């Protein structure tokens, strides 16, 4: 008996294979987009975990010298006083224009590192500890390193983040040319019973707790939240498709189910079988979605990795590995989502009386539902607003966003209904009057799809506005900041002196770029020294300042800090920045510093030498007649034997920065387009679902003298009008979204606030795109209508249905 029922049930799909395809596509899209985002997040998080495991970040306290490197004697002193510390020497290492990070740890005293555990299996520890030593690196990096003649042998490990070379501190000091230097001391767990206080042994060191160290995972949380939100949105939109298709399929199978029941099949058994059928479909769709998601994630990951590296310096591999966790989660989401999306249809079906007549949709019955949804929406809006004002912060910001988006979505049907009512009232002709009335009748069936469209559009406008505002600000800022015509990196301080001597008579100005990494309670702080030059006074973009900011800085009496530091440490002009045990300076101004994850400060060159004497002087900005830049760059390279990347022209630098910027938001745009596409698809499925209920609406009008071409045109315009109305409502929503992103989320997540620019031209494009999507979605039903044999319409009037 069960077999017979299954045969009957599945026969539906045989004759409606397109519907089956739609259903599977819906599930696959929902699962695919969701799991793609999850896969990306999982991969990034795994990368952070790897990095943190290697660097012991966020686990142990650290000792740092605010003025620079820690001398080796301090290490011995601390150790012999009982302090259990491990020495780390780290620094940048450049190979073929690529900047790698050398992490030298005292492999005798450092806590167990996974990479070493992995590598030691194939090597003698004596080789790691004694010259020439060994370098540990990822496989990709190993190839690059092995090609270098003068480097120690490389051991390949999967445990290291990209761009990191792990090695013994003895090897690192040679590699980084920093003999006897230590960057930081990791305070190991299990200190002995009592040790003398730090102030007695090494008063110039500062102890930094893991909480105040920059934790990539925490730093990037907001980015992942963003991605997750997008994933959720896509998932929801995908479910709208499932909901539409399942509703249609159930409506079409009503007759068959009635027959089956009349033949003695219990409703219970039918519901179970249909549930099983849905489960199977969900799993198939889910698996397709997972495959889709895997490839999508693989395609997007390199860009995400670039973003994370660019924005936060967070190390993420561009390589995707299949992790069972997100695969299972994806299948679970597919299953759960399908069942949720089908619940309503299934419930209705199970409550269907045996002898129900042909279904006449109680089309206005949902007026109450509309109002209820609207109340919920209002409540959510209020909740979001309250959460933001009371909780605040990133969480509050996201609560505001969530409340705003869901609230607005729930309010949409009522808003549209009111708008349609108004239009209907003003309508003169009978046809227009009918069209408005008919749209209102269609609204409940379409509202889910329209909500999806609203969300997709709002996200598009919001995120688009954010990205464009960011781009505009960034490019403007870049123009201000990159003022030197040439940027030069000498091989040594000595060469630097030679070059500046040679250059001095023939250029407008030479601006040394010298910096030191200090420890601040909010994380690493890069202190730059500048010489007094009009270039800074004219172009350096200050967002908060005192009257004589530059005078104060140049006279060594004050410091300028970047926006990130200002916001993180809540330091503004007038406050005092501590730069070490003996150094503190008032803040004279705050400058914007987009795309930089860390804190930064500017003092006069004299102050820099006071605070951290002996910093290298190898980098320079050179001001000169722009027309001579290319020629001089070439001369410099030839005369001093500099590598091509050691002399960079301003234009190239800008182009590079812009390229990085564009890459940063590729993911966002890709997800934007995908979401909009899915929303269009949701409209299509909803229209197809409504199709069965359309004939009784259309047939009388047709009979009264509207031809099918007219009706088809009206069908198209209806879809376009609804989409256009939704788009109009999405615009303010999107702008609020953009504001929240720029003024709330960005500040919390990145540490900078961006001015908001509006781009009406983009809106117009988006609006047209929406119309195209809506027309495309309605094209199929319209075409069907156009080709509909009159007999089908006539059948409505006869009692044969």
């Amino acid at each position, binding site marked *: 008996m069960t077999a017979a029922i299954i045969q009957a049930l599945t026969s539906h799909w045989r004759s409606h294979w397109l519907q089956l395809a739609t259903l599977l596509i819906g599930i696959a899209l929902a699962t695919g987009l969701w799991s793609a985002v999850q896969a990306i997040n999982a991969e990034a998080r795994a990368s952070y975990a790897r990095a943190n495991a290697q660097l012991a970040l966020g686990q142990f306290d650290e000792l740092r010298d605010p003025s620079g490197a820690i001398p080796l004697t301090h290490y011995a002193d601390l150790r012999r006083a009982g302090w259990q510390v491990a020495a780390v020497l780290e620094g940048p290492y450049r190979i073929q224009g690529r900047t790698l990070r050398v992490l030298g740890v005292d492999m005798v005293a450092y806590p167990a590192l996974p990479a070493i555990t992995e590598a030691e299996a194939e090597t003698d520890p004596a080789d790691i500890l004694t010259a020439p030593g060994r370098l540990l690196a990822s496989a990709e990096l190993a190839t690059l390193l092995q090609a270098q003649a003068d480097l120690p042998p490389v051991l390949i490990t999967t445990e290291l983040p990209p761009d990191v070379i792990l090695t013994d501190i003895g090897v690192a000091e040679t590699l980084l040319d920093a003999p006897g230097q230590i960057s930081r001391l990791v305070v190991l767990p299990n200190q002995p019973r009592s040790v003398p206080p730090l102030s007695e042994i090494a008063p110039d060191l500062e102890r930094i707790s893991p909480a105040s160290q920059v934790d990539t995972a925490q730093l990037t949380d907001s980015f992942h939240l963003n991605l997750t939100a997008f994933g959720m949105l896509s998932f929801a939109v995908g479910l709208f498709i499932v909901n539409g298709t399942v509703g249609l399929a159930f409506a079409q199978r009503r007759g068959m189910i009635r027959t089956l029941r009349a033949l003695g099949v219990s409703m219970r058994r039918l519901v179970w079988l249909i549930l099983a059928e849905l489960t199977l479909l969900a799993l198939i769709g889910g698996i397709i979605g997972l495959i889709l998601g895997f490839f999508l994630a693989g395609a997007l990951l390199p860009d995400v990795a670039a973003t994370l590296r660019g924005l936060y310096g967070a190390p993420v591999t561009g390589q995707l590995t299949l992790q069972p966790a997100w695969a299972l989660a994806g299948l679970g989401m597919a299953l759960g989502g399908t069942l949720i999306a089908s619940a309503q249809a299934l419930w209705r079906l199970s409550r269907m009386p045996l002898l129900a007549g042909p279904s*006449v949709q*109680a*089309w*206005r019955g949902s007026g109450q539902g509309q109002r209820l949804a609207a109340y919920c929406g209002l409540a959510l809006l209020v909740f979001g607003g309250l959460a933001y004002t009371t909780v605040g912060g990133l969480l509050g910001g996201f609560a505001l966003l969530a409340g705003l988006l869901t609230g607005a979505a729930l309010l949409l049907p009522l808003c549209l209904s009111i708008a349609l009512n108004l239009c209907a009232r003003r309508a003169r*002709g*009978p*046809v227009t*009057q*009918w069209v408005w*009335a*008919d749209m*209102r*009748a269609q609204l409940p069936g379409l509202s889910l799809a329209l909500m999806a469209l609203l969300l997709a559009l709002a996200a598009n406008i919001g995120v688009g506005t954010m990205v464009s505002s960011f781009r505009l600000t960034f490019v403007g800022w870049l123009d201000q900041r990159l003022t030197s015509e040439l940027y030069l990196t000498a091989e040594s301080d000595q060469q630097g002196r030679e070059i500046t001597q040679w250059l001095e008579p023939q250029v407008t100005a030479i601006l040394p770029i010298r910096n030191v990494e200090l420890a601040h309670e909010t994380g690493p702080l890069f202190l730059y020294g500048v010489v007094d030059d009009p270039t800074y006074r004219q172009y350096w973009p200050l967002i908060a300042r005192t009257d004589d900011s530059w005078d104060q800085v140049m006279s060594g009496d004050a410091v300028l800090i970047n926006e990130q530091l200002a916001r993180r440490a809540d330091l503004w002009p007038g406050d005092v920045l501590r730069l070490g045990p003996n150094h503190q300076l008032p803040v004279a101004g705050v400058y914007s510093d987009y795309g930089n994850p860390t804190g930064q400060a500017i003092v006069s060159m004299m102050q820099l030498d006071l605070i951290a004497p002996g910093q290298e002087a190898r980098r320079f900005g050179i001001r000169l007649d722009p027309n001579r830049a290319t020629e001089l760059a070439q001369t410099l390279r030839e005369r001093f034997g500099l590598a091509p990347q050691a002399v960079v022209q301003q234009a190239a630098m800008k182009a590079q920065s812009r390229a990085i910027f564009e890459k940063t938001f590729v993911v966002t745009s890709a997800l934007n387009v995908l979401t909009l596409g899915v929303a269009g698809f949701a409209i299509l499925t909803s229209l197809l679902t409504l199709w069965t209920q359309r004939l*009784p*609406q259309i*047939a*009388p*009008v*047709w*009979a*009264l*003298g*509207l*031809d*099918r*071409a*007219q009706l088809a045109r009206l069908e198209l315009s209806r879809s376009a009008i609804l989409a256009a109305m939704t788009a109009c409502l999405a615009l303010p929503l999107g702008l609020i979204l953009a504001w929240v992103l720029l003024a709330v989320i960005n500040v919390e997540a990145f540490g900078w606030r961006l001015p908001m620019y509006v781009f009406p031209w983009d809106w117009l494009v988006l609006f047209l795109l929406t119309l195209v999507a809506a027309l495309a979605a309605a094209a199929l039903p319209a075409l069907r209508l156009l080709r509909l044999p*009159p*007999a089908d*319409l*006539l059948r*409505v*009037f*006869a*009692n044969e249905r």
Partner: protein
Amino acid sequence: MLLSIEHVHKTYPGGRPVLQDVSLSLDHGQTLALTGESGSGKSTLLNLSAALDHFDAGEITLDGIALSGLDDSGRAGLRRKHVSLVFQQFNLIPSLTVAQNLSFHARLAGCHDPDWEAHLADRLGLSDLLSRFPERVSGGQQQRVAIGRAMAVRPKLLLADEPTGNLDETASAAVLDLMLSLVTESGTALLLVTHSQDIAGQLDRRVHLAGGRIQ
């Protein structure tokens, strides 16, 4: 002659002939009952006369217009201006109120006359239901709205296909009485499809169809 049907043939794709060589004519003000068994082709003949469907051969002329020469929009125009229709069910536009339904056809045809419509509503006992939606009124009332809508255009020809087929006997009689009296009063010609000999008996003429031919 208002309606003249000459040697009309109709076959649905893949089926046997529905109408074979049917000829019939109806003059202004005349009422004619078209009877026959289920599947005899009587509804098809009515639909063809209303320019709702195409015929394969022969000719139908309505108020001097030959239907075979019309395209889709021409047919729609003819339906709009020259005929009124009452079907067995789903006559009304569900998204419009009774009042809007009542005037819909007249406004479409460009002969909207509020007084006349008010009069019709009154005659048909619909005055209290005007703001309701079709689904909120009874089947008999729905059919009365359909009749009102049809008469609102002051049609020369009213085509009715089993207008009382879904109603019980009492309601059926009432609706039919109203329709016949309105038709008579306004001098409208009526082509009524019915399987009921009783109803057919109340009309001027009666034509019986069987197997697609006039008996």
